[in-house]
C-alpha cells in the first residue's frame, strides 16, 4: 500500500493499542525522512490530545553514543510526553500495553522557565531548569526487533512507552550532572553503568538541543514541563518476572518489577 502522514499515524496508534509490531515504513515508503517523521509525530500527538491525553513535556532519544551505536542512527530526536506515559513508583511494567519493553536510565529535568530557541545554549538551558531527578524510561517500539531508520523512529514518537521518576528532586546548582553516575542492575546483577557526561557531555546540552529543534517547528519548551534527556546506557530488556534497578549517585534509585505476561488475546 502507499503510505502518507495520515495513514502512518493511524497505523502507529493502532499498533500501540493492539500491542502489534510491524516492519518499518521506510521499506515501503523510502521518502519517509526525519522531517516527514516529525509531521507524523505531531499528527499522533494531535490525536492523543483529542482523545483526552495531556501534553506534559518532551523526551529526547539517542542522545548518548551508546544508544546511537546500538541503533545505527547518528542524530538525537525529540518526541512528545503525555500523561498516559507516566508510570508511578511501585507499579509493574505495564506488559499489557507494551510490545517489547526495554528500560534505560535517564536524567530528568522539571522546567522552571519557558525555553525558546533558536540559539539556546547548554548554560541557558540549565538556568531554566527548576529541578533535576533520576529516572528511567520504558521504551517500546512499534517496529519489529526495534529495527528502523531515522524517519521511522521519529514518526513512532522516538520509541516512547512509559517513564518513572526517582525519589530525589534537586535544584540544578546542587549537583554536577556530568559526574552523576547510574548503575543498572537486572535481576540483582550489575549490567551497565554511565555518568551524565554520556548525554552529549552534559544533559543540559540535550535540553538546549530540544529547545532549538522545537523552534524549527515554531514551538517552545514550557515552564513545568518534564524533560527526559535520553538513555545514559544501552537499554535492558524488562520481560515479565524480571526486576530492574537504576541507582544514581545523589538522585536515589528507581526500581521496576517486570510484572506478569499479558493474557493472550
Amino acid at each position: 500500500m502507499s503510505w502518507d502522514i495520515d495513514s502512518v499515524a493511524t497505523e502507529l496508534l493502532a499498533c500501540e493499542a493492539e500491542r502489534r509490531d510491524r516492519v518499518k515504513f521506510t521499506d515501503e515508503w523510502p521518502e519517509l525522512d526525519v522531517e516527514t517523521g516529525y509531521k507524523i509525530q505531531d499528527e499522533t500527538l494531535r490525536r492523543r490530545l483529542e482523545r483526552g491525553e495531556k501534553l506534559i513535556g518532551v523526551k529526547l532519544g539517542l542522545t548518548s553514543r551508546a544508544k546511537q551505536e546500538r541503533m545505527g542512527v547518528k542524530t538525537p530526536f525529540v518526541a512528545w510526553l503525555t500523561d498516559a506515559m507516566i508510570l508511578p513508583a511501585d507499579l509493574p511494567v505495564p506488559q499489557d500495553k507494551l510490545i517489547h519493553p526495554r528500560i534505560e536510565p535517564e536524567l530528568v529535568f522539571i522546567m522552571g522557565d519557558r525555553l525558546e530557541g533558536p540559539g539556546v545554549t547548554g548554560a541557558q538551558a540549565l538556568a531554566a531548569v527548576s529541578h533535576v531527578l533520576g529516572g528511567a524510561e520504558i521504551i517500546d517500539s512499534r517496529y519489529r526487533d526495534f529495527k528502523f531508520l531515522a524517519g521511522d523512529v521519529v514518526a513512532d514518537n522516538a520509541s516512547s512507552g512509559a517513564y518513572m521518576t526517582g525519589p530525589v528532586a534537586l535544584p540544578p546548582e546542587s549537583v554536577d550532572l556530568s559526574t552523576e553516575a547510574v548503575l543498572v542492575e537486572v535481576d540483582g546483577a550489575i549490567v551497565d553503568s554511565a555518568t551524565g557526561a554520556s548525554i552529549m557531555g552534559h544533559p543540559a546540552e540535550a535540553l538546549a538541543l530540544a529547545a532549538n529543534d522545537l523552534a524549527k517547528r515554531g514551538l517552545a519548551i514550557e515552564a513545568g514541563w518534564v524533560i527526559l534527556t535520553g538513555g545514559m546506557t544501552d537499554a535492558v530488556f524488562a520481560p515479565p518476572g524480571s526486576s530492574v534497578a537504576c541507582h544514581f549517585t545523589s538522585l536515589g534509585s528507581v526500581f521496576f518489577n517486570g510484572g506478569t505476561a499479558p493474557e493472550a488475546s
Partner: protein
Amino acid sequence: MDSSLKAQAAKELLGAYASRQPIAPLTETYPDIVFEDAYEIQKLQIDQMLAGGRIVKGHKVGLTSAAMQNQLGVDQPDFGHLLDDFFFLEHMPIPMDRWLQARIEPEVAFVLGKPLKGPGVTVAEAIQAVDFVLPALEIVDSRIKDWKIGIIDTISDNASSGGVILGGSPTRLTDVDLRLVGCTLLKNGQIVGTGANGAVLGNPINSLVWLANTVGPSGVTLEPGHVVLPGSVTKMQPIAAGDTFVANWGALGSVTARFAKEN
C-alpha cells in the same frame, strides 16, 4: 605442564618485555597448559623481577566487569603484581618505549593502612584495612600478540599489567558510597567512556576481598601502603604517543596521564 616448560613460558614472556615483540598465545604454544600453571608462570617472572631489585608495591585485579568476563568466558577475576617501577607521575610525560600495545583503564585505587590476610576476609575487614582511595589510571599491556588472550594467557602475563598513575586526592571510604561514584574518561579532551564503580564486581571492595582471600592461602599478606587496583569502570582504550587521558571522578577528584609524543 612440567616445570621446564613453565620456565620456558616465563622466559618467553620476560623476553617479550625486553624485545617489545609480543608472543603467540601460550594456549597455542603449550596446548597442555592448565589454569593452575598460569599463576606459577606469573610467579616465575615476578621472582625474576624481584631478584633484579624491584619491589612489590601492590596488586591489580582484572576481569572484574560483566563485559570482560563474558568476552573471556569466565566467571571470576584474576590478579597480577604491581612493582615499584610501574608507577608514573601525573602530568609528567610517560615514556612510550616501554609498551607493546598499551591500553588504559580508569579505576579507584585502594591504599591499605593495615595488613589484610585471607582466607576468610570479610567486606567489613577489607573496608577497615583501607586507609583511603585515590583516583587512578591503569596502563594495561599484553605480551601476547594482538591481545588474543584467554584467562590462562592473561594470568601467565601478570594479568596484563603495565603501569599505574595515581591522583593525589585521598578520600576515606566513610565519606563516599564508592559503588555509586561515577567516572568519565576523556581522551584528548573527548569523552570516550563513562561508568560507575559498581561495574567492578558490583562494588570495588569485592575485588579487594577476593584478592586477599585468593592470595592468602599461599601465605601472601596485603601490606600497609600497598596499592590495590580493583578493576576498570569503563572499556579499555588504546593509547597512542602524545595522548592525554583524564579520568574525572567527581567527588573523588581527577587524575591525568600524559604520554610522551616520541620515544
